[in-house]
């Protein structure tokens, strides 16, 4: 009768924690907190403190999500999807309008952007829908495709009405990517891409004027330096003046002088890149890449199709955030207002990240369980 029982109970719990995932996330989050500290001019207030609290709450949520069996989440997938659509409809009616766009829900002291949560729910439901197919069935049972198509298109259209073209496009891309992972034959994707190219002129006409303007200035931002091209030019100045090794922590000038109005949210990458230089920005990109690699490894090790699709889908979702955000601040993509997960100040993205984290851990814990 030795007293190892406590330790024995502790050990599986301890090793059950997905350490690589957590460490990479902690490193990225650390970067984010530094950036927010610097964005406030070397002060924990007003952003870093709040963000730290959010991280703590998010970690708690991640543990709760992780400790629930993945099968339960699979059964809850549809509920999550309908919940997301419900939130999007709520935005339609009671949303907060900023700059002509209604994207946010005011819930007491929290401002929620439901379109972000919707994407997680969509990955869940798509994974749940595609897991039933055996090898090759996906490509054969094409008549069933209106179902996933609706699962993607309904939220995309609701988001487009807000109007938020960037997020709508991301939802479409995410849906397509999950379907790609489900093993649909590649020819369908070639055909789809062809159709999309053909439809581009039509989409262009439907765009809001400010969105057209943004795309046009993206092609030639110097054309309107004080207007629509301002963001792109200023963020490139901030990036470029950072150089190889940066101006040192808290040594940035461009961010602090308020040349970038959304410095602590969508343009926070420029602040890091200015203060830590190319080394810093590439290091951050590397951290994100390792996060994705860990997630994809999880997905690959998974035996059930649900887990595979869920984890890879969540990975794609986060990757879209990162690539679009960095592409945007470096002038490769139009300014669409996409945050950098765990670095940008903002509650919804933190929530999305930690829910994703929890789901990945939940999947990796139950990876040996066969799919039903």
């Amino acid at each position, binding site marked *: 009768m030795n007293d190892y029982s406590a330790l024995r109970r502790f050990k599986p719990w301890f090793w059950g924690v997905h350490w690589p995932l957590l460490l990479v996330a902690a490193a990225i989050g650390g970067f984010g907190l530094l950036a927010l500290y610097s964005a406030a001019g070397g002060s924990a207030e007003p952003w870093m403190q709040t963000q730290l609290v959010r991280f703590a709450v998010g970690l708690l949520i991640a543990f709760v999500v992780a400790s629930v069996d993945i099968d339960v989440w699979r059964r809850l997938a549809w509920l999550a999807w309908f919940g997301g659509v419900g939130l999007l409809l709520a935005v339609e009616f009671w949303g907060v309008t900023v700059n002509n766009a209604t994207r946010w829900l005011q819930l007491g002291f929290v401002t929620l952007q439901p379109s972000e949560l919707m994407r997680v729910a969509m990955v869940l439901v798509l994974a749940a829908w595609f897991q039933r197919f055996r090898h090759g069935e996906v490509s054969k049972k094409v008549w069933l495709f209106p179902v996933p198509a609706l699962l993607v298109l309904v939220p995309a259209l609701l988001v487009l009405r807000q109007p938020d073209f960037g997020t709508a496009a991301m939802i479409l891309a995410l849906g397509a990517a999950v379907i790609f992972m489900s093993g649909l034959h590649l020819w369908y994707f070639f055909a789809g891409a062809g159709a999309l190219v053909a439809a581009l002129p039509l989409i262009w006409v439907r765009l809001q004027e400010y969105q057209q303007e943004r795309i046009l200035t993206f092609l030639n931002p110097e054309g309107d330096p004080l207007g629509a091209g301002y963001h792109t030019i200023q963020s490139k100045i901030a990036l*470029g003046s950072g150089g190889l090794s940066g101006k040192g922590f808290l040594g940035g000038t461009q961010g602090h002088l308020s040349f970038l109005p959304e410095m602590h949210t969508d343009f926070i990458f420029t602040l890091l890149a200015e203060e830590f230089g190319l080394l810093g920005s590439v290091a951050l*990109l590397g951290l994100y890449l390792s996060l994705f690699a860990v997630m994809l490894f999880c997905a690959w090790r998974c035996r059930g199709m649900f887990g595979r699709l869920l984890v890879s889908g969540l990975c794609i979702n986060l990757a879209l955030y990162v690539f679009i955000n960095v592409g945007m601040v470096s002038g490769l993509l139009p300014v669409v207002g996409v945050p950098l997960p765990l670095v940008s100040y903002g509650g919804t993205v933190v929530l999305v990240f930690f829910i994703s984290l929890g789901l990945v851990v939940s999947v990796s814990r139950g990876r040996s369980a066969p799919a039903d």
Partner: protein
Amino acid sequence: MPRSLGPSPIARAREAERRQSARFTRRVLLLGGAQLAFATVLGARLYKIQVLDSEKYRLLAEQNRVSLRLIAAPRGKILDRQGKILAENTTRFQLVLLPAEVADAEQTLRTLAEILHLPDETLREITDRLKKHPRFLPYVVREELGWREVSAVEVNTPRLAGVYVVTSAARHYPQGEALSHVLGYISKPNEEDQKLYPQIRRVPGVKVGRSGLEIQYEAILQGRPGTKELEVDASGRPVRELSHKPGTPGEDLITTIDDGMQHYTWKRLQSERSAAAVVLDLYRGDVLALASHPSVDPGLFDGKLTDKTWQQLQSDPLKPLNNKVIAGQYAPGSTFKPVVALAALESGHGPHTEFYCPGHFTLGDHRFHCWKKEGHGRLTMRDAMKASCDVYFYQLGLKAGLENIAAVARLLGLGSRTRLGVSGESEGLVPSREWKRSVYNDRWHDGETVVLSIGQGSILTTPLQLAVMSARLATGLEIQPRLVRARLARPHRPVLRELSGLAHGLSLSPWSLAFVRDALDGVVNEIGGTAYRRRIDREGLEMAGKTGTSQVRRISPEEREDGVTKNEDLPWRRRDHALFIGYAPVARPRYAAAVVVEHGGGGSTVAAPIVRDILFHAQSKIERLAGDFNGDGARRG
């Protein structure tokens, strides 16, 4: 029958699962590859910006650190005809708070409230606004601070980190409310102003004209903003000034107003509830004084006006925001009689035309009354003018006819806007047959000509038009009033823009004019004239003029029977308007004036004394025109 040796269902399922896993693995690799590719592209992009083009962006960043600020050009002054200041720029003390430097906003504001005695309500308002204010931009807590408050803030500096007293430009109008209708006021530009004047769009603290001369000559007064290059530190605070290009100051405006005359005229109106007066110089039509009472302090609009005060001003029955001299429209009453006389003379009815006044005149089945119930008896034109006999003019008007009366009225400047160049001027109304048809779809009745002959009915005039009429009667010239003499591009190098030379002569016979002038002389300076008791009893300064009392109500036959209610017994709003037009000196007219006292009562008792005082003041106090200000400090001899 032996079963074929195909794979068992379980094996087939296993095979399918293996192949599915294999395909998923391939797709994971594809996805990972794609992510790597994207990351590489981004990395390459960052390398290009942060390493290859770094120099270029470093330079741009340096330029970013140099902040270009626009500075408002000093607004042009408005001067009176002698160069005395009517509107100028002064500095005042503003209380400003820089949120980025305030450690504890709540505590700071509480201290401020204590020092400045701010009510809790204001404090709450400021706290709310401050929350939404950008951290690095100064927030204006108080637009204007008195000396005592400035020193109170200075003494408490240690407790008020991030709070500053700064100077800001303000507009000062030495004449205050006396001239506010003429000068107008200025305030912060709204979006439409910014569209109209794009050059001032980003200029901090700039103000634009809102009414009067300030808005009429906005483009001249405004000037061009200058620029200032500042090096700013990481928190956006200026470290030092790199360059300073002053803008072009606005041009000064030399008006025709005579500071002293204006002040006197304004003072003179204060005894009445609501009145308008205007004085013209007959030499060039210069408006020497233009006063509308009651008025408002123009400084009130410069950031101090509350909604409540504004609503009070707008709903005030005395209409203090209205410039009654140019916007008020009144029936001219008996001041219209010279027009009728001229029309009769011009159409061949000589001065000896006689009519009998029994106290009333009947046309068809309608009876028109004279102001004198017992009648004037038999009169010639000159006596009728002196006594202002209504019955005589009823009949003279009928003889002259509507067309002639209207033509002379228009010739004398009634029924159309003058070329004063200030917005808000009313047109007035000179009726005609066409007008009657188009507005009432009815023909012109002779009874209307009768009423028109004593300046009642549909005819409407502004006090300014009456003054112009007086000036034209006095000179026989087509005098146009003007408010601005010249603009001064730069001090000491004036660009004077004198308007028009002498006016053209009117197409009226000098003989008729001479007769009417003689009659107007009689009105004031002969026993029996309606304004005899209000004459200027000084050799060489005598004035000529005409009284007018215009009814704003109808007197019913019953009331006439019982005796007409006296003005004093009526509520103010239903009393008659008192009018007087005049010019002086009689021998060689130099100044003309018109006064309307709203609901003041009789023209001879209320309006005439005001004109008398104004014209006397003009002749005895105004320096000669030769002494007018020309911007170079010297007077032209």
